[in-house]
């Protein structure tokens, strides 16, 4: 178990007692409510909310493996009936995670103001996989899976009610999905840019203050995006949020370690800027108030399947095809189903990281299971592989032909975005597999096959047909109002698409090194 050696220091079920005074390190004096007995040698003590009979004790003294409150699960030790609050619980990820965690015996609560449903409607689109109303979803989750979800309809900007709900639930982990997740949506016009930045930045800021005041020991799992880093043309690696200690700045014949400093961000839309602002706000809150957070830089998500959402049609999660809210693989599959050429922007050589829905759920669960330490701001790049858009289109086309006998074409259109469409890309995504035990379970081709099987059902195919006119992008970063034009319809490639690369270069190098040192063990 990846988290067996974690101690109460990581556990959200403790209160800290004592005093921290390290002003010299840039930290303010912090006096916890309770003071330890002066005869105790350890300065900071822990008190367990679940086992108050233990009194005050050394926070490093008990490991998860030894604590009866932490029980084994497929994703590491998990706190028994852990209280997890999901902000944005009605969305593509939020709903899926609610059922996933519910099936692991977590006590799930959540809020949503249905803004995703409203925004998609505003763009004239609808989810191609039909989803039930929240009341029906909740009822069905109970009937089919035996999962009770404590849901409140609420806007994250409604700070008073949010605080009240947090205080009532006392969550031990908070997963924050309550943000507008769309670059094009933020680039429509000034009103949309403001709407996205206001909701995302102010929503997160309000949440941070609520956590500080009410549940500072809870861990915040905050969804960021790989898009925060952009695609720097120098080709420097995209580290996991901060530089490793061996990254050195050289100038004027002198050297400094960059270890632990935030890496440069190069967001590519006003939406991405809001995520970068969040990164800094969360980073500072951890520093000022000893909050604990993982900032999850998620690659492009795809897929329709988890065992829970597939258990009943009323439990399905949404799937969007429009330019604002559909993600690339999901969009490609919907295009293929209705015979619309898979649409690449510009050269189509943009490279991105990807992760399947089920793998994303696994990663978030593993992060919840190994909470950060007091004050720790950790960043993970959550992806299982990366490839170019063009290669991805070829993979989808191949599976579409094989699985459904579809005649899938690929086209290039003008690129409405401001981005490099050919660029180096070297993401580092080692932490989840190395420190959290993440093992990729989704096979991309298999998941795409599964998507074809679902989306070619007549009633769903009909829903795609109805919104086919919303597939081509209309939002230009320049503000120009016009439809994109086709540049080229690609001839069917004879070559086989290459697989999505599933290991980062640094992990591969480490493996090779290990094989050199000890060829017998590694074989």
């Amino acid at each position, binding site marked *: 178990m990846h988290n067996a050696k974690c101690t109460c220091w990581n556990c959200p079920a403790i209160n800290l007692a004592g005093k921290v005074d390290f002003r010299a390190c840039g*930290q303010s004096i912090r006096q916890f409510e309770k003071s330890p007995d002066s005869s105790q040698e350890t300065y900071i003590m822990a008190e367990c909310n679940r086992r108050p009979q233990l009194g005050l004790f050394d926070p490093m003294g008990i490991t998860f493996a030894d604590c009866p409150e932490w029980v084994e699960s497929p994703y590491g030790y998990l706190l028994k009936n852990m209280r997890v609050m999901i902000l944005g619980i009605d969305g593509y990820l939020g709903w899926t995670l609610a059922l996933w965690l519910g099936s692991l015996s977590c006590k799930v609560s959540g809020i949503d103001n249905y803004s995703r449903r409203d925004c998609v409607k505003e763009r004239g689109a609808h989810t191609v996989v039909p989803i039930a109303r929240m009341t029906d979803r909740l009822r069905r989750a109970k009937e089919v899976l035996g999962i009770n979800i404590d849901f409140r309809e609420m806007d994250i900007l409604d700070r008073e009610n949010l605080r009240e709900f947090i205080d009532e639930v006392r969550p031990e982990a908070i997963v924050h999905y309550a943000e507008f997740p769309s670059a094009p949506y933020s680039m429509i016009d000034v009103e949309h840019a403001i709407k996205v930045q206001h909701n995302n930045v102010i929503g997160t800021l309000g949440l941070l203050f609520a956590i500080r005041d009410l549940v500072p020991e809870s861990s915040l799992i905050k969804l960021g995006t790989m898009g925060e880093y952009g695609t720097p043309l120098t080709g420097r690696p995209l580290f996991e949020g901060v530089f490793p*200690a061996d990254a050195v700045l050289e100038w004027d014949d002198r050297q400094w370690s960059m270890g632990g400093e935030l890496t440069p961000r190069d967001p590519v839309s006003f939406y991405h800027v809001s995520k970068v602002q969040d990164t800094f706000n969360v980073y500072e809150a951890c520093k000022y108030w000893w909050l604990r957070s993982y900032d999850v830089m998620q690659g492009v998500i795809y897929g329709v399947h988890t065992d829970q959402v597939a258990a009943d049609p009323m439990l399905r999660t949404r799937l969007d095809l429009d330019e604002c809210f559909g993600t690339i693989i999901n969009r490609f599959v919907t295009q293929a189903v209705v015979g619309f050429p898979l649409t690449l922007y510009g050269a189509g050589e943009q490279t991105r990281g990807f992760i399947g829905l089920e793998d994303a759920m696994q990663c978030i669960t593993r992060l919840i299971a190994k909470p950060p330490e*007091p*004050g720790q701001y950790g960043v993970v790049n959550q992806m299982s592989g990366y490839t170019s858009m063009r290669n991805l289109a070829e993979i989808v086309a191949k599976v579409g032909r094989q699985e459904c006998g579809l005649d899938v074409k690929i086209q290039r259109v003008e690129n409405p975005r401001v981005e490099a469409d050919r660029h180096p890309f070297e993401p580092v995504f080692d932490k989840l597999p190395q420190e959290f035990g993440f093992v990729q379970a989704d096979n991309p081709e298999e998941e795409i096959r599964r998507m074809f099987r679902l989306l070619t059902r007549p009633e769903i195919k009909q829903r795609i047909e109805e919104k086919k006119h919303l597939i081509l992008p209309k939002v230009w970063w320049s503000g120009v109002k016009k439809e994109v034009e086709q540049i080229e319809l690609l001839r069917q490639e004879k070559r086989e698409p290459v697989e999505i690369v599933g290991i980062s270069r640094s992990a591969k190098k480490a493996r090779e090194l290990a094989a050199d040192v000890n060829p017998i063990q590694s074989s």
Partner: protein
Amino acid sequence: MSQVITITDRTLRQEVLESEILVLIDFWTSWCPPCKMVEPILDELAAEFEGRLKVCKLNVDLNPQSAAMFDVAGVPTFVLFERGRPVGTEVGARSKKQLLQVIEAVLAPQRAETSIEISAAIDTAAKDLPVVKAEEM
């Protein structure tokens, strides 16, 4: 293979001040990103210098006495000890190459001894440390 040892105010005397081999302490906190990034380097040093260097880490929030004793004013701080005496201090994240330079300078044979004043100061401060017998640890 040698690993990084977690030490506390209680074990500092035995693990560090009474150590017969060179000791490197990483004074760290959980809220310090540079401290986290240095961890893999410390693991490598512990393995590579097995028998010649003991690598320890001490959480300054949980062990303020030791931190105060060595004037730790920022994290991470690395202090190298030879026969219980500090012989080198580095403040801030360091690359492996930079830490190696400090360690190798001390391991090199021709080198000045620790000053008498520092030795006396440590002796005074160490009097306040708890004495822990090996079986209690």
